[in-house]
């Protein structure tokens, strides 16, 4: 029998603050609903126990500054570790698909972590993806992010990565946090076209979102032919969501799941704790398990205005044109200290809403026809003068890009406060800090 794995980790003893949306209560009613329905008694459902990710696995994917010890990572490591448990079950053929119904979420956590953003600190999906690549040699992975917010963290992590196709459907960034995710964001120089952002108008609704999936997302997936598809299953497209206004129903989410056919769905946002989550989570799980979700109907009814289908179709046409005509957002900029090669330069600002500060970043990537290219990110949190550096040698790195990474690592030590080397190809993480010297992190 084709099994559907479920890892339900509601973290009932953890919150970001008593009245914070990311609080103990968030998955309480989901638990009530799932337990009462008896979904765990479905013969094809297999429940898994949570696990804790080793820090090294997180560091292989994200640079945590100024030092991992400065962050409270426990809950995040369990959410990520639980996602890994399910990912391993998938890779080892124990399940056909699965749902990591875990909190806290992760898709706003990017390549560098200076604090909590959009309730995320560690990026559960991204850590999983790199784990699947390093442990099982998986080559091509696609992420379809159906949270109403742009999956900016995941995009950031894989923007230069030709092995990962990132697709995000979200409410237009001009009307919603985090304000990014436009059709022109197509990927870095070595991964151009591997990023697809589809900003949708408020009121898109079930039919609208299904149309976008069928007419844009699925064809793009077919073209890429991923080995694994991961769905960042945020639930804030729901019509009852307090912040967004996309007007999608629980059954609409069931259909999204049926269309995307993810190998793994991972919970992201969604803070309509009562009116949406118990229903949406049930619909997604039933859809994954191949069961009828038609009876999953909310107690409340949608009341917000809906965009007409024809105007949605024409909006999608415009977006497609915008995507086709998009121009690169980097410049080629040599620096005397950069190793051999041509380096693209992208300056960025990243806002951390939880604590209210800006991160200033200078991203650089080495142009390479053979691999994803060495990535070098310089990060700062003004007014502090400390600089942090992240150097990434990508999976499948060519010898030149590998060498460039190690050259940068040696050059940077002593020149900044923290240097983190992610040698994804060599499966190791080196961490240098002013006060501590070099620490080796195991990534297995």
């Amino acid at each position, binding site marked *: 029998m084709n099994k559907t794995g479920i890892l339900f980790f509601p973290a009932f003893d953890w919150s970001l603050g*008593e009245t914070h949306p990311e609080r103990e209560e968030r998955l309480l009613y989901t638990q009530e609903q799932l337990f009462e329905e008896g979904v765990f008694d479905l013969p094809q459902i297999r429940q898994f*126990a949570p696990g804790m990710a080793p820090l090294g696995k997180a560091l292989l994917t994200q640079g945590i500054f100024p030092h991992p010890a400065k962050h409270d990572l426990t809950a995040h490591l369990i959410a990520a570790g639980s996602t890994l448990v399910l990912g391993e079950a998938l890779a080892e053929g124990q399940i056909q698909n699965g749902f990591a119904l875990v909190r806290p979420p992760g898709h706003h956590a990017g390549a560098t972590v200076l604090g909590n953003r959009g309730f995320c600190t560690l990026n559960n999906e991204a850590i999983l993806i790199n784990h699947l690549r390093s442990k099982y040699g998986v080559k091509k992975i696609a992420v379809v992010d159906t949270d109403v917010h742009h999956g900016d963290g995941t995009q950031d992590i894989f923007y230069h990565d030709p092995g990962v196709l990132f697709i995000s459907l979200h409410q237009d960034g001009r009307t919603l946090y985090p304000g990014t995710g436009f059709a022109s964001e197509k990927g870095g120089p070595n991964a151009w076209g591997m990023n697809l952002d589809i900003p949708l108008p408020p009121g898109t609704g079930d039919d609208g979102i299904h149309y976008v999936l069928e007419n844009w997302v699925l064809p793009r997936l077919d073209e890429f032919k991923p080995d694994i598809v991961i769905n960042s299953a945020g639930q804030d497209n729901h019509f009852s969501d307090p912040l967004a206004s996309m007007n999608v129903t629980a059954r609409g989410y069931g259909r999204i799941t049926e269309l995307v056919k993810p190998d793994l769905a991972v919970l992201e946002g969604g803070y309509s704790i009562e009116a949406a989550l118990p229903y949406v989570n049930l619909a997604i799980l039933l859809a994954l398990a191949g069961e009828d979700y038609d*009876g999953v109907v909310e107690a409340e009814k949608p009341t917000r205005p809906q965009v007409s289908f024809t105007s949605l179709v024409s909006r999608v046409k415009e977006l497609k044109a915008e995507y086709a005509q998009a121009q690169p957002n980097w410049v080629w900029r040599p620096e005397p200290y950069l190793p051999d090669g041509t380096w693209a330069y992208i300056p960025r600002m990243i806002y951390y809403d939880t604590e209210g500060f800006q991160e200033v970043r200078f991203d650089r990537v080495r142009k390479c026809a053979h691999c994803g290219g060495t990535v070098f990110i310089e990060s700062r949190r003004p007014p502090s003068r400390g600089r942090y550096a992240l150097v990434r040698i990508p999976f499948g790195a060519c010898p030149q890009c590998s060498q460039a990474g190690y050259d940068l690592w040696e050059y940077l030590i002593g020149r900044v406060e923290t240097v983190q080397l992610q040698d994804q190809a060599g499966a190791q993480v080196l961490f240098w800090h002013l006060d501590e010297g070099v620490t080796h992190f195991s990534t297995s």
Partner: protein
Amino acid sequence: MRRHVGIDVGGTFTDAVVINEEEIEKKAKVPTDQDNLLQTLLSALDRLGLDGGNPVDEITVSTTLVTNSILQGRFPPVELYLLPGGGMKLESLSWPVPYKIMSGTIDYRGREILPPDELQWRRILQERRQNPLKSDHVAIVGKFSHRNKLHEDQLAAYWRLAEPEVHLALGHEWGQANFYRRSLTTYLNLASQDLWLEFARELERAVGERGCHAPIKVLKTDGGVLPLDQVRPVETIYSGPTAGVLGAMAQNPDASYVVVDIGGTTTDLGIVLSGSPLVSARGAKIGPYKTLVRSLAVRSVAVGADSAIVREADGLSLARYRLGPAYCLGGPAPTPTDAMCYLGVVPYGDRVRAEEALASLLPDEHHLPADLTGLAESLLEEMAGRLAAEIRAMEQEWQDEPAYKIWGVLHPHEARQFYVWVSGGGARGLRDFLQKQLRVEVRVGRFPEVSNAVGAALARPTFSCTLHLDTVLGRFSLEESGEQGKWQGSIRPHAEVDAFLEKSAERLAAAKGIDLTGTEKEPFDFFPIVQGYRTVGQIVRGRLYVPPGVRGHLNQRPEVGSRRSET
């Protein structure tokens, strides 16, 4: 001096003991007559020689009465009415019994979303009036009725007015989540009620006629005991494996081990962690029925000391059934016991007959002692191998138990040093083989043949009171009794809720005649309920309980190590 009687009705034999403080005073074994369990119990009691001149303080029975009647479908018809509301389709799960659907929806917090339809009720009762085959047992179960029994109560009240003679059972009396299991549990319990009450009455009477007036209790599958008339019948299913675990606990204070209880055709496995039996996270499953009945984490393997040995295309194998006792004990056909007897690893049986039995399984030219020894060993290796695989699977299942809190992930059960405790007929014979397969120490107690009866005799009452409180809706419920009521206390209770749980527990215990000692508490879970960035109240969960355990330990030194390596 306290004298306790324990009787365990097994599939083949019924074992009984009288325990006097720390010693077994008397033992008895009678064949089980599955068609007359009452008579079986009485003859076991008679064999113990109970009468007024030698009074005992308490009798505890572990009986297969309800288990058998459910597995064989021998119960009166029950009409099941469901109020499933929305959500997952009923057909997604397999329903071993027919049901009728009624309208009415309650949500996960117990709020009424859609009221029931009285016209529908009227129609159903009209139909029943014209139906000569209608059952007088009616079960009504609503989805989320454990959060709000409103619809069940309304329908029941309507029904009682129309048909006062009908036996009604309502789902909320099983107050845990899981609509599917709650429905089947309510159904089975109602279906078993008449049979149980009749059995209880007759047992009381027959024991009384023998001049014995000790209270009679029954062992539940969660390891606790209750007076015959207090127990919910379905809670007595599969008490045999539970008795085996308790029997082991009476002989192994405070250790961690796997219990292997070898019966005639099945072997029961259980786990004890630092003196406490592992409790199953979900309810017991019986035949096609998944229930909410709390049970120990036990599993039965279809192989035992009397399993028939059958010839298959690729060799000999152990069947799931028994043809009778072992050949070496006068039975009709070879069994694993014959292999044990031939190898000299059990102290009973006719070795000449054991040799004959084994020889009958081999071609004539392979009757040399080396052939027979090889065959005997390979049969016992197969049996031990099957048990070892199940033991590993059970340990894995325990480690895979989900956790829902950070605390639980950071504090997993320590991986303790386990040993294996074997009881039952073939315990001594299988010890070395199991030890070789599992590579851990395997121990056998002094009384492997009556371990289950010992467990029954020494079982103590269990108790549990789980509170679910929603201060915003002003409602509380108690899982175990299904009681629901209004919360008059504060919106954000602290010490208050502790006192409330204790008072509720005392009330529940008193109603069941349980003396509350040795209670433990799970830490409360407080869920602040927030509306528009303002905390408006809390959902609180808490539990007070007495875990399963034994009231004393047998005085004994377990035999340690391998018998064969001694000789």
